C-alpha cells in the first residue's frame, strides 16, 4: 500500500473533520441564539401557469369526495373520471381536495387558501359533497333528532355554504359547479319517516341556495339509495360502497357537458 496514498487520505479526513466540526458548532450556536423569526414574506412569484391542455376538474368536500368506503379507494370521483375519459378524447386533470370528516366551515376555510383558489380559477368543473358531517355528526343527530337543534345546524351550514359559493363564484364564474346532495343512510332503520323528512328538508335548503347561482347544479342522490340502501352501503352503514359510488358517478357523469 502506497504510503503517500495513506497520507493523502489522512489529510482529506482531517479536512472533513474540520468542516463537519464547523457545521456542528454552527448548529449549536444557531440553536442557542434562538433568534426571533426571520421569515419575511416571499415575493409572490408569477401566477401559477397551468398548461391549459384538456379539462380540469376540482373536487372539494368530505369523505364521499375522498372515497371512504370504496374497496377500490376511488370514490365516485374516481369512477366519474374513468367514465368521462371513455367519453371524451380530451386530457382530464383531477385535483381532489376532499378530506374525510370535513364540515361546511372547514371547507370554507380550505377554500380561503391561495393554492386552492389558484386551482379553482383554472377549473372547468367543480364537484362538491358537503353537509353530511354537519347534519349527521357521525350518526349522533339522527339517533335523537330534535327539531330546533337540527334547524340550528342547518342555518349554520347554509351560511357557510353560501359564503363558500360566493367565494368560488368570485374566483371563477365560468366553471360549472355540481353539488352532490345527501342520501339517507338510515332509511332502513325504524324512524325512517323522521330521518327521511330531515334529509329531504336539508337537501331542499341546499337546492334553494344553489338556485341563486348560475351554472350551478344540485345533484340528488336520495333516490339512488332509497330502495336497497344496504346493497349500496359500506359496512359502516354510512358511507357508500363501490356500487353506491358507481351510482353517484354515473349520475354526475350524465350531467357533465363540456
Amino acid at each position, binding site marked *: 500500500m502506497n504510503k503517500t496514498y*495513506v497520507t493523502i487520505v489522512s489529510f482529506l479526513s482531517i479536512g472533513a473533520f474540520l468542516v463537519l466540526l464547523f457545521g456542528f458548532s454552527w448548529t449549536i450556536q444557531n440553536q442557542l441564539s434562538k433568534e426571533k*423569526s426571520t421569515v419575511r414574506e416571499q415575493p409572490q412569484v408569477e401566477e401559477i401557469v397551468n398548461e391549459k391542455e384538456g379539462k380540469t376538474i376540482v373536487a372539494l368536500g368530505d369523505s364521499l369526495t375522498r372515497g371512504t368506503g370504496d374497496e377500490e379507494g376511488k370514490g365516485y370521483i374516481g369512477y366519474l373520471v374513468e367514465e368521462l375519459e371513455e367519453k371524451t378524447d380530451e386530457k382530464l*386533470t383531477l385535483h381532489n381536495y376532499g378530506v374525510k370528516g370535513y364540515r361546511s366551515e372547514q371547507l370554507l376555510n380550505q377554500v380561503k387558501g391561495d393554492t386552492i383558489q389558484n386551482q379553482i380559477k383554472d377549473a372547468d368543473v367543480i364537484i362538491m359533497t358537503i353537509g353530511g358531517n354537519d347534519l349527521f355528526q357521525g350518526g349522533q343527530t339522527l339517533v335523537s333528532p330534535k327539531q330546533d337543534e337540527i334547524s340550528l345546524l342547518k342555518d349554520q351550514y347554509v351560511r357557510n355554504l353560501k359564503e363558500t359559493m360566493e367565494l368560488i363564484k368570485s374566483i371563477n364564474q365560468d366553471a360549472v359547479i355540481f353539488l352532490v346532495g345527501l342520501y339517507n343512510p338510515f332509511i332502513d332503520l325504524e324512524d325512517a319517516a323522521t330521518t327521511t323528512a330531515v334529509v329531504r328538508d336539508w337537501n331542499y335548503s341546499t337546492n334553494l341556495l344553489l338556485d341563486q347561482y348560475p351554472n350551478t347544479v344540485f345533484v340528488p342522490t336520495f333516490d339512488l339509495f332509497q330502495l336497497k340502501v344496504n346493497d349500496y352501503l359500506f359496512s359502516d352503514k354510512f358511507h357508500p360502497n363501490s356500487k353506491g359510488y358507481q351510482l353517484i358517478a354515473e349520475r354526475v357523469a350524465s350531467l357533465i357537458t363540456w
Partner: protein
Amino acid sequence: MNKLIHNEMLKIIRKRKLIVVIAIMAVLISLFTYAQFREVQRQIEKLGDVDWRTTLQQQIVDTQNRLTSSGISDEWKAQLQIRVQQQQYYLDNNINPAEPGAPTFVRSFAQESITLFVPLLIMIVAADIVSSERSAGTVKLLLTRPVKRWKILLSKYVALLLSISIIVVLMGLLAYVISGVVFGFGGWKAPILTGFTSIGGELNTSHVQLIDQWQYILMEFGLVWFVAIVVGTLSFMLSVLLKSTSASMGVMLAALIAGLILSNLVSSWQSAKYLFMINLDLTGYLAGSSPPVPGMTLLFSIGVLAVWAVIALFVSFSVFVRQDVY
C-alpha cells in the same frame, strides 16, 4: 503519535473498509435516487402540472385524510399534525420545501439516514478496530512496542474519528453527484425554514428562520457527523470489551434497531429519553418533526449522546490499559 495514527489509518485502508463503505453508499444512493425519480414521475402523471404548490396542497389534503382515519397511534397522529401545519406554513409563506435538485435530495437523504444507515456504515469500520487485532493475535506485537498502551488506543480512536469524518463527507458528495445527474446540480441557495418547535401537538413558529439550503445541509451534516462519532465511540468500546467482532456488531445492531422501534412507542415512558438510541434523530429537530418523547430538544439530545460517548471512552481506556493480553 503521528506515526501511530498513520499506521492505524494504513490498517483501515488496507482492509479495504473505506472502499466497501463507499461501494455500499454508491449502490444505495443510486437506488434511492431512482426511487425518488419514479416518485416525481408519478406525481407529474397524477396531477398533470408540476407546480409545487399544487403538489404540496395535495400532500396536505392527503395527510389530513390520514389523520382522520381511526386506528393510528397517538404518536403518529402528533407527527402528522405537526407535518400538516408545517406544510401549511411553507405554503402560506410561498416557500417550496422541496426545490427540485440535488441539494434537496442530499438534504432529505441525510435526514433519513441519520438513525440507521450512517450508524451501520460506521459500525463496519468501528466494530473490529480492536477486537480484530486480538483475534488475529497482532495485538501482542503492538503491545510489545515501547509505547504506552493508552497511546496505542488513542491512535486507534483518532484514526476512527478521521475515517468517520471522511465517510460522512463522501456520503454527501456521492449523494450530490449521483442525484445531480438525474435532478440537476442547482438549488444550493433555495430557501429553507428551520426552527420549528412543537408544544403539545401544536406547531410553534415564533423562532422559525429562513436560511439557504447550503447552510441547512452543512448544519445537518454536522449533526450526522456527531451521531456517527457517538455510534462509532460506542462500537469502539464494545470492540474493546468483547473478544468477538460479530458479538460487538450484534449488540450495536440490536441497540440501533431497538431505538427505531422504541421511538414510535415511548412517548409515555419519560425516562426512555436518556437512552442513546432514542436520541439519534438529531436532524429531526432541524426539520421540526415532533420528538419521540415530548419535551426533548436538540441540545438535550446532544447532551445525552455526549455523556454516553464520554462514558464509553472512559470505559474503553480504563479497560484496555489494565486488560490482560494472552
